[in-house]
Each structure stands twice: as structure tokens, then as C-alpha cells.
């Protein structure tokens, strides 16, 4: 008899089968993933992909008998009431375990969809493949770091505020013990004894001598010596900023169509996935604006529609306020993506420029402006129309401000644009060289 412990064998023995299965249902799964991208909250996307596949694609047909045709025999346990020759009404189709009568069709339909769960990686693969995405994980931003302070042992010099009391007193005590500094108790005891001793006692001079000796020694050996002092030492170290906040700014005025919003949403989803892969902690702030801006939750952000004019600077002001309130640029990596169809009140241009230059851009890691257009795109043969906002930002970009801007008309452009915007710096440089 052998006992074999298989528990440590590499798992995932049926991984190859799963891959084959996924390949088989790729089309349907992809469609489902695409659907879920439309329905799900950005944050939940890719967390777990529960996917339903119509059973058609994965049916394993067999020759099987159709219940409900022909004559069937049933042997059943648990008879309490029937005797031979009794008649029983047919149970409603599909009900109970016996004589399924005309239930044939019903039992076929009971299995009309096959549900299974995609892992996050599988989900992302399908999702990103939809956007013709090569491996996203290899793209990185330049590593962002700040200086941090941390404790690093003790030092003999330092500011009094950093005095390490415990350590100092420990040193002091060991020194006092080593040098046999008389304890206050000892001196007090000796003093008491002298006080009790009559002046005629012949021992008195010796005692007095001993007392003065002790006092002398206590004075010579200080309670705390400069030698004992220890200070807490700090050193600086580069600290990667591990949290990021993503600002989604979107124009929701009447001129934004559903198509444009869908484009924007896809872009935001990509950005979110990208950031969550890069940073441990990512927060999202949604700011929507017409001629006035408000911070809203995701549902409102994508769902509701507003009417009104368009004033971009209002969103920037709101963003500035939120940064000042909650996201200190020293602690947070701030990413901002703005989506708009490009409309803006022309008088707003200088205000926006100034806001961006003075407040927003310095605080941001990256500011991306995405101009979403009609599905049909700019018609060929026409001089490309530049929108108000585009002109504003273009002027700003020309002065060297770190602002990236792209136009997107079709869903398939989203990923290339995203990649351009977020490609690794040196990779881009290499590509250009």
C-alpha cells in the first residue's frame, strides 16, 4: 500500500481545459464582458466577471430520448395509498420526479444559459482585447517618489526634542551601577544613623567621614552625564507615493450625446484599470459640469443629463477646491482626465488657461484632455474644425505645459489614444529615435 500526498502538486490541472473552454466561448464571453462594461460601475469592473453564455455555444449533444413521447415505465418508492389499477392524474409538466407528461419542452428550456465566473485576468484580457490592447501591465509611468522620514536607530547628538529618554536613562543607570554611585537611600540611611548616634559615640567621626565620602562620590558621579545622552535618529528615504486619485471631468451639457459619453466612460474605465494595477489605493472623483460644476457620484455622472451652457472653468474651480480639501498633492498622485465635446464659452478661455497653469497642472501627475466626437468622425474634405476648448488647450500646450490632448471619434480609437497618453516615457523616446 502506498500513500501519496498530492496536495502539493501544482494546481490548475484543468487550466488548459479552461483555456480551451474560454476560447470556445470567446465571442459570447467577449460580448458579455462588453455588456458588463456598459452596465457595471467602473470600480467593480474586472473585480469578478460573472458571465452567462447561452448554452447553445457549449452544448454537448447526445442522442437522448425525448420524454413525453411514447410509453414510459416508472418504478417509484414510498407507495402509501395506491393499489393496482389506480389512475393518477398527470402531474403538471416539469413537476415532480415522475411521469413528466408533456414536460419535454420545459425541461429543455431549463438550461438556457450557462453561467460561470471569469477571473480578473481573464476578464481584463477579454476586455482589453476588445480594444485591441497589447499587454497593459508592461506599460508604466515613471516612478513617482517623495522623500519620507523614518526612524533609524539612535545618535549621540541631536535636538532636545528628539531626546530618547528611555535609552538615555538606561545608559545613565548602567553607568551609575558600574561606578558605584551611592544611592540616595544609602545616604539617607547613614544620615539617620548619625542623627540617632549620641555625640559621645566613638564611631561618630567614622560615620561622618563615610557620609561625606558618599556625598562626595554622589557629586562626582552625576545622575545623568552628557555621555548618557541619546537622541532618536531619523533619516530620509525615497517614498513611492502609493495612492492615487483620479479626477474625471466631463461636460454633460446637452450637446454631449450618448455615444460621446460612452467613449468617455471607456476611457475612464481604462484609466481606472491602469491606475489600480499601478497603485494600491485609487480614489475616483467625478466632477460634471455645464455652466456650473458639481462633484457627483458615478451613477449621476454617467447617467443623468443636464441642460445648460458650458463653462469649463467651473469644473476646474471645483477640482481645485477638492484637491485643496482632500488630496494634498504631496501625498497623492493626481490624475485628471477631462472629456468634452469641445464646446466652451469663448470668454472662458483665459480663465481656464490661468486656472490650469497656476493651480491644476502643477498639482497633477498627468492631465489628459479627451475630445470626443461623433461616431462618423470628421468628414473628409473639410478643413478640420477646431473647437473652442481645443484651441484654448492647444495654446496652453504650446507653452510647454504638461497637458495631453487627443481626439476620439470611435470606440476602437480609445485604446490607441490611451496608450499614446500613458505610454512609458522612455519607450516613447525610443520609438521616436
Amino acid at each position, binding site marked *: 500500500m*502506498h500513500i501519496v500526498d498530492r496536495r502539493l502538486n501544482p494546481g490548475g490541472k484543468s487550466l488548459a481545459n479552461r483555456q480551451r473552454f474560454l476560447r470556445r466561448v470567446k465571442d459570447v464571453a467577449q460580448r458579455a464582458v462588453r455588456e458588463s462594461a456598459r452596465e457595471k460601475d467602473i470600480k467593480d469592473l474586472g473585480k469578478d466577471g460573472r458571465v452567462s453564455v447561452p448554452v447553445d455555444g457549449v452544448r454537448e*449533444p447526445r442522442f437522448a430520448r425525448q420524454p413525453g413521447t411514447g410509453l414510459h*415505465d416508472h418504478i417509484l418508492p414510498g407507495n402509501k395509498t395506491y393499489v393496482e389499477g*389506480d389512475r393518477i392524474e398527470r402531474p403538471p409538466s416539469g413537476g415532480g420526479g415522475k411521469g413528466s407528461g408533456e414536460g419535454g419542452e420545459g425541461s429543455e428550456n431549463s438550461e438556457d444559459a450557462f453561467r460561470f465566473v471569469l477571473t480578473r485576468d481573464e476578464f481584463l484580457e477579454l476586455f482589453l482585447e476588445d480594444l485591441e490592447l497589447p499587454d497593459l501591465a508592461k506599460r508604466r509611468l515613471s516612478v513617482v517618489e517623495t522623500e519620507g522620514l523614518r526612524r533609524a536607530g539612535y545618535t549621540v547628538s541631536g535636538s532636545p526634542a528628539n531626546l530618547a529618554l528611555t535609552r538615555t536613562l538606561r545608559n545613565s543607570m548602567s553607568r551609575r551601577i558600574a561606578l558605584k554611585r551611592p544611592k540616595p537611600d544609602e545616604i539617607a540611611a547613614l544620615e539617620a544613623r548619625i542623627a540617632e548616634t549620641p555625640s559621645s559615640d566613638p564611631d561618630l567621626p567614622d560615620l561622618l567621614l563615610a557620609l561625606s565620602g558618599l556625598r562626595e562620590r554622589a557629586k562626582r558621579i552625576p545622575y545623568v552625564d552628557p555621555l548618557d545622552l541619546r537622541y532618536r535618529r531619523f533619516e530620509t528615504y525615497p517614498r513611492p507615493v502609493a495612492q492615487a486619485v483620479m479626477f474625471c471631468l466631463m461636460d454633460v451639457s446637452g450637446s454631449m450625446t450618448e455615444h460621446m459619453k460612452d467613449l468617455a466612460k471607456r476611457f475612464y474605465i481604462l484609466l481606472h484599470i491602469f491606475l489600480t494595477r499601478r497603485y494600491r489605493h485609487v480614489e475616483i472623483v467625478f466632477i460634471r459640469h455645464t455652466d456650473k460644476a458639481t462633484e457627483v457620484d458615478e451613477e449621476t455622472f454617467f447617467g443623468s443629463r443636464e441642460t445648460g451652457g458650458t463653462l469649463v472653468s467651473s469644473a476646474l474651480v471645483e477640482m481645485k477646491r477638492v484637491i485643496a480639501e482632500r488630496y494634498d498633492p504631496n501625498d497623492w498622485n493626481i490624475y485628471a482626465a477631462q472629456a468634452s465635446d469641445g464646446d466652451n464659452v469663448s470668454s472662458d478661455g483665459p480663465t481656464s488657461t490661468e486656472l490650469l497653469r497656476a493651480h491644476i497642472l502643477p498639482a497633477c501627475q498627468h492631465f489628459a484632455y479627451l475630445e470626443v466626437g461623433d461616431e462618423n468622425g470628421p468628414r473628409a474634405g473639410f478643413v478640420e474644425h477646431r473647437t473652442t476648448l481645443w484651441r484654448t488647450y492647444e495654446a496652453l500646450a504650446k507653452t510647454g505645459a504638461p497637458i495631453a490632448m487627443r481626439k476620439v471619434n470611435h470606440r476602437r480609437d480609445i485604446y490607441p489614444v490611451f496608450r499614446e497618453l500613458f505610454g512609458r516615457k522612455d519607450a516613447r523616446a525610443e520609438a521616436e529615435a
Partner: protein
Amino acid sequence: MVGSIIRPTPQRISGGPSPLFTGNDWDFDTIKRIHDACEAIAGPELGLSWYPNQIEIITAEQMLDAYASIGMPLFYKHWSFGKHFAQHEAGYRRGMMGLAYEIVINSDPCISYIMEENTATMQTLVIAHAAFGHNHFFKNNYLFKQWTDAEGILDYLDFAKGFITRCEERYGHAAVEAVLDAAHALMSQGVHRYPRKKRPDLASEQRRERERAEHGEQIYNDLWRTLPQKVAAGRPDAAIERRKALLELPQENILYFLEKAAPRLRPWQREILRIVRLVAQYFYPQRQTKVMNEGCATYCHYRIMNSLSEKGLIGEAAYLEFLQSHTNVVRQPNYNERGYNGHNPYAIGFAMMQDIARIVEQPTAEDRQWFPEIAGTGDAMATLRDIWANYRDESFIAQFLSPKLMRDMRLFHVVDDPDEPELRVEAIHDERGYRKMRRSFARQYDVAWLDPDIEVVDVDLEGDRRLIVHHRALNRITLQKDDAKRVLQHLADLWGYDAVLKEVDPATGTVLAEHHASARSIFF
């Protein structure tokens, strides 16, 4: 209802040997001790014989893996296994499905997978159940002896896996997958139900020819030559006969037929059909012996656990734990109870084994009348061993389901005839019903009766090479249309030309339904 099969707790001899384990924890030493203790009972007390045991400890995930590859430790890759894995996993994660405590493989050595989550008691139970009960059955039952090769199966699966992987590398995933899909669809039509006649080899053929000639010379009489001959009318018949003989028609093993006779398949495609066919053949005995196999294993574990308990090798707590899971396993809900899902093979199997032991040891007058061969012979284990070796579910139930058990289970027989407005109670557990009911009940375990009876009847070789397949629609039960169409499509694809499936009522010869499919050129 089946409560009566639980024996009262046996009296324990105090001061016996110390228990094999205490508490729930176990380690490899414990497993070894458990196995040895079970062995000491299975051999001398029960007289079992078994393949050497190999006990493998696996995790829940590995158990799911094993489920996905129909229990085999290695198997070729196919998407359908991935689908089953996803299904099982989803069920398991949602807590809707418990995993088996063990899986046992009919191989030599006999591999039993046991779950690491099991308590020490459960490990004892599954070792007694699988490593001795099932193992004995695999080694001794005639169907397994006849159809499976316990020594060779793992090597064969290794070959199959490697072969299919090489095919995938060489011809692409899609091509291999298409063949496997088609082959899987026909898998249940891929078994030989009877041993084939051995083909004569050249030497014996020559010898036969010579003997025949000699015989002819011996009885030669010139007078016969003068008799008027019948006009040679049967020419076309002879051609059909010859064709059918050449193609070995009619043939119910469709995969075998395709492997040998499909005109356009390439060698590697034939080999894949063969692999699927042989795997189906390997599992064919298991399908025919569900009740007996489980009954045998359950009876063995019950005997072994009781014996362990009598010897004081397992404590009272462990014994109670065993009883609890044992009663769960052999529970048979009534037809109108919640959770009724057909007959529980463990329940019937175990109840019948117990019943046979009772008949052998303490028969009633009724038993003596019904089972004169075994009633009162006294050695229950010998009788059971003989039954385990020489029967399958259908013959087992047909012979050994006793009136008492039918009464205990309160079996009744309902006929569902579409021509009648209501269901009819054909028989119940009474004097008039026993035999009738037993016959129908046994038939429900006859695989040949359960599987649709489909065979390749003819090929239109002189015309468009159309393959003609018949389904003998027993009791006028036709096939599910959708699936039949799909499977027929696969069949036509493999055959390479059109295929037609006729559903024939064997009683009257009328055609109930007809399906057609034309080959798509996906394999060629």
C-alpha cells in the same frame, strides 16, 4: 424507510486494543494504521480480494480537477472538461454541491483519492468503502474483467493524452477539437455491447478451407449435379449481403464503424475516434453496475466499520459520526418527498446486500420459496462475493430483489402512456405485483434498454454514399429533435457524405421521424 437496515450499535468489548485514532486529526501514520486495520478485516473476515492500494490525498481544488476529467488522474484536454469544471466549481463555491469524499479508479494499483478535509473517521470510511469495497468489485466483477484492462488504463490514457497533444501541435487546435466534439457526441454509441467474434487468422482459415474441401470430397455424389438448379435470382441480394458483410453491418458501435469505414478520415482522425471509443468502452461496465458497485462498497464499509468498532479500534464518537454519514448516504426519499431524484443506487444496493445476507442467514418461508438456491445456506459473504463477481445491475435486481424489500421500500409501478388520459398504477408491492414490478425495475438498470438503440444499417455505396442509420424507437419514444439533429450533423461530418436517421417503431415498422444531415467540409 431504510432505517431498518441500520443495525443496533454493537456491544463493544471493553479492555480491547486502543483506538486507531482519537479526535478528527489524522496523519500518514494514521492512514497507514487505518488501512492495515481495514485490511485485516477485509481479508480474513470478508474474504475480499483486491488490487494493491494506492491512496492519494488531494485538496478540494484537485478534487474539482478530477471531476472535470471524469475522475481520471490524467486525461486529454478538451473544452467540455473546462465547462464541467466551471459548472462544478460554481456549484461548489455557492455551497450548492458537496464534493465526493473520495474517487476511486479502476486501475492496478487501484488509486483512491481521498480529500484532505475529511476527518479521521471519514478517512476510515472512505478507505473501507473505496480501497476495499470498490476495489474488490473492480477486480472480480465479470464485466470489468471482460471489458477493462486495469493494468493498462493509465498507460493508455497517457498515450491518448500525448497523441492528442501532438495532433493539436501538428494540425491545430480547431481541427482536433472538431473531431473530438463529433466523437464525444457519439460517445454513447461508441461501445461494443457484446464481445466480438474473433477474426480467424490465415492459418486457421486455410485449415478450415482444407477440411471443407476434404469433407466435400468424402460426400461427393455425382447425382446432385443432375438436379435442376434454381434460377440465380438473388444477385442484387447477394451484393447487399456482401456489402453488409464487408462493412460489418448492421453495426451499433457507430464510432467503431466510422473508424474502420468512413472513407475520408485521415489516420490521426481515426485514431482519435478510437481513443474516445476505448474510453467509452472502459466506462461501459461502470454504467451497468452502479447499484451493485455502490452496494458492494457500502456493504463492505458497513461491515468493516462495525467490525472496527466491535474490536474497539474506533471510538464511540467516531462510530456515531460514521453512522450519521452512512445514513445520509443510503437515504432514499419517497417519490413525493422533497429531494426525490430517482432511486439512490447506494440505498438500493446496500439494502439489497443486507437483504441477501439476511436471506442467507435467517430466511423466512417466503425467502425459501423465492430464493431456494441461497436461502439458509449460511455463508453470507460467500454468496455475496459470488453475486458481485457474476452479475450486473439488471440481472442482479431481476434475480435478487426480494418481496420483503419491495414491501419495505413500498415500490409501485406507474405506466405513463401518452394514449391514455391518466397515469396508471400497473403494479404495487403485493403478491400479484412482485414479479412484474421486479422485471420492470430491473429493466430500468439495463443500459441497452436505457440507451436509444441506434445502429448503422446500410450505406448507399452505389448512389450518393448516404449513410443510413436507424433508431429502433422502443415504446415509440423518439429522440430529442434538437440534439438528434446536432449529433447527426457530427455523424455526417465524420462520414463525409450525407446521413439519414430514421426512427422506426420496431413493433410495426413504421417510420416515426426522419432526420437528414449533409456533411460540412470541416474535416477535409
